[in-house]
């Protein structure tokens, strides 16, 4: 047990905090502890979780990406135009188009980083400005409301009527989110590529000398994030039932905060899918709880910022220092 505690300290602390907050919220509000609210939480945080697991892969490989949310907007817009041109289509073709476009945009980042040795934050800040500038220039900020029917149609996977007559619904975004999470989990923990990503993120030069293909690592990490950004973009369009070119602007920093809160390290080699999902959920549960407690929406972000700041401060003070008996034998602090 101490071993599990030691290797998954961040996840366990996060889980404990989430449980604590949930317990308090269940006691304070009568609406929080219900199936309907739990489903709402999952429905609304799906897009962020999809982005988050994609970003996690890049963070594990030692990079950072600022451009993915804007890339998702670009994918959304192009996919909406393409699907309009083709006429019809369906979820499968939609996901393939969006995912493919996303991978292309991610590959541009990987190419710049790998070929020209540009540091990932510099390269992605440049592509962030290029993608967003060009998107706003060509679209003139005009939104698309005329989406195909299958995209705007709500797909309910599971529903149940609560005692008070309201319906608890689980919708398609959740299914896609679960698929993305499982796929990412398999990639990083169950494949050789995943283990290589961790090795590369922890020590790029060591990984290179070990015979790991450095270029492939860049393309896989940024390609995977591109894929997730594309899928997330399409799901967001489905959820919002419209495509607004600047709707996702600024989302990248919120997702980044949540992922790092979940234990991923800026600098690479560390982070788990579970922790990353918990990080996103902590932020959305807090937001949801504040909403149910009738806190002014203007105060939301203030409280969330304070909580993240507090969480970082607490989690960066090494847990083993607070709990000396948890320390593995022979380890220096």
């Amino acid at each position, binding site marked *: 047990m101490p071993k599990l505690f030691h290797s998954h300290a961040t996840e366990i602390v996060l889980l404990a905090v989430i449980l604590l907050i949930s317990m308090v919220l269940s006691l304070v509000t009568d609406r929080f502890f219900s199936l309907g609210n739990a489903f709402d939480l999952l429905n609304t945080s799906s897009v962020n979780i999809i982005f988050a697991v994609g970003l996690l892969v890049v963070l594990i490989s030692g990079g950072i990406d600022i451009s993915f949310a804007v890339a998702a907007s670009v994918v959304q817009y192009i996919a909406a135009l393409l699907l309009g041109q083709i006429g019809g289509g369906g979820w499968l073709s939609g996901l393939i188009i969006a995912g493919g476009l996303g991978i292309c945009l991610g590959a541009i980042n990987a190419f710049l980083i790998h070929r020209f040795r540009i540091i990932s934050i510099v390269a992605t800040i440049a592509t962030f*400005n290029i993608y967003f500038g060009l998107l706003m220039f060509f679209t003139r900020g005009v939104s698309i409301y005329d989406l195909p029917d299958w995209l705007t149609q709500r797909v309910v996977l599971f529903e149940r009527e609560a005692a008070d007559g309201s319906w608890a619904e689980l919708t398609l975004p959740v299914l896609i989110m679960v698929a993305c999470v499982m796929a990412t989990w398999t990639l990083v923990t169950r494949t050789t590529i995943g283990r290589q990503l961790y090795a590369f993120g922890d020590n790029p030069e060591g990984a290179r000398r070990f015979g790991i293909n450095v270029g492939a690592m860049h393309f896989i990490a940024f390609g995977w994030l591109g894929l997730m950004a594309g899928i997330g973009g399409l799901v967001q369009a489905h959820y919002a039932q419209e495509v607004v070119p600047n709707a996702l602007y600024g989302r990248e920093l919120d997702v980044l905060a949540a992922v790092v809160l979940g234990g991923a390290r800026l600098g690479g080699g560390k982070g788990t899918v579970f922790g990353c999902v918990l990080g996103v959920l902590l932020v959305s549960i807090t937001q949801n709880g504040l909403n149910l407690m009738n806190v002014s929406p203007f105060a939301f972000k203030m409280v969330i910022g304070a909580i993240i700041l507090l969480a970082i401060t607490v989690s960066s003070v090494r847990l083993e220092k607070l709990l000396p008996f948890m320390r593995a034998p022979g380890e220096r602090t």
Partner: protein
Amino acid sequence: MSSLMKRAGKLIGTEIIGPGLAFIAVMLFFGLAAPRFLSNATFGSVAFQLPELGLLTLAMLLPILTGGLNLAITFTANIAGLTVAWVLQNHGGADASLLVFAAGCALAVAAGALSGTVMGLVIAYTRAHPILVSLSMMIFLRGLGEFLTRGGDISGFPSFISPIGHGSIFGLPIPLLIFIACVLLWHVLLMRLKLGFNIYMIGSNIEAARYSGVNTRKVLVLVYTLSGAMCAVAGIIMMARFNSVRVGHGESYLLITVLACFLGGVNPFGGFGRVIPVFVALVVLQLLSSGLNLMGANQHLATAVWGILLLGVMIMRWLVSWLTLSNTYRG
């Protein structure tokens, strides 16, 4: 003559080459493509637009030099603007006296410095990553500002504030003069003071700096405090220019300031970079956007071109290092 050149080179450093070349390229391109480009109007608009972005970039520069980032700069500036507005409104609104305004400015700088100090303390004492700390501070300040203003904007300031944003002395815009004063201040700080030297040391290798007896925690706290104070100056200028305060003003500048620092040759890992090349990079960015404006494009295209310019400079830098490397192998 050559010793003069050497001294000038030492003063500005080799980082000037990238932005310098970009400056020449932009001047040549727009000078030939848009005949109205080389006129007083262009330089007037650049001179008035430069300070807002420039002051925020100065605020971003110090944390980057220590190997960090301060993502809270734009909202710190907004909060500082709100502080001035709050002081003015509580002491007569549009009829407030100059003394009240001065007190408000002092309080605004203090507020900006305070937010910086908090970040600096968290970063220095917990070793949490600056991106994350400043990010959560940004989310907090944005929330605080929106909570206080309810998303609206505050206006109705005394008439003597307007010249700070729009006035000129001897033909030079006042905001530009304030900006240049701040540039010189930062230059002296980094080149002449012990603090500046320690900032470079920490950016190169924080552990080595600590073992050499540098109080790294104190320096980090000071860096973020100064950064916050500089944001406040930017916030006051922004308030005078728009004649109103709204949370979210200048939000899009955030990543542009990082771009400007990198364009000015600052090392993303910290430790290397100077103020003057960053200043030149800022001028290049503004000239680009003014030039594109003259040719009928809008700000969004300019943003995209800024990104392309950054990539171009980075690729050039890679080419140069690649060529020198292959030359050394051959020779």
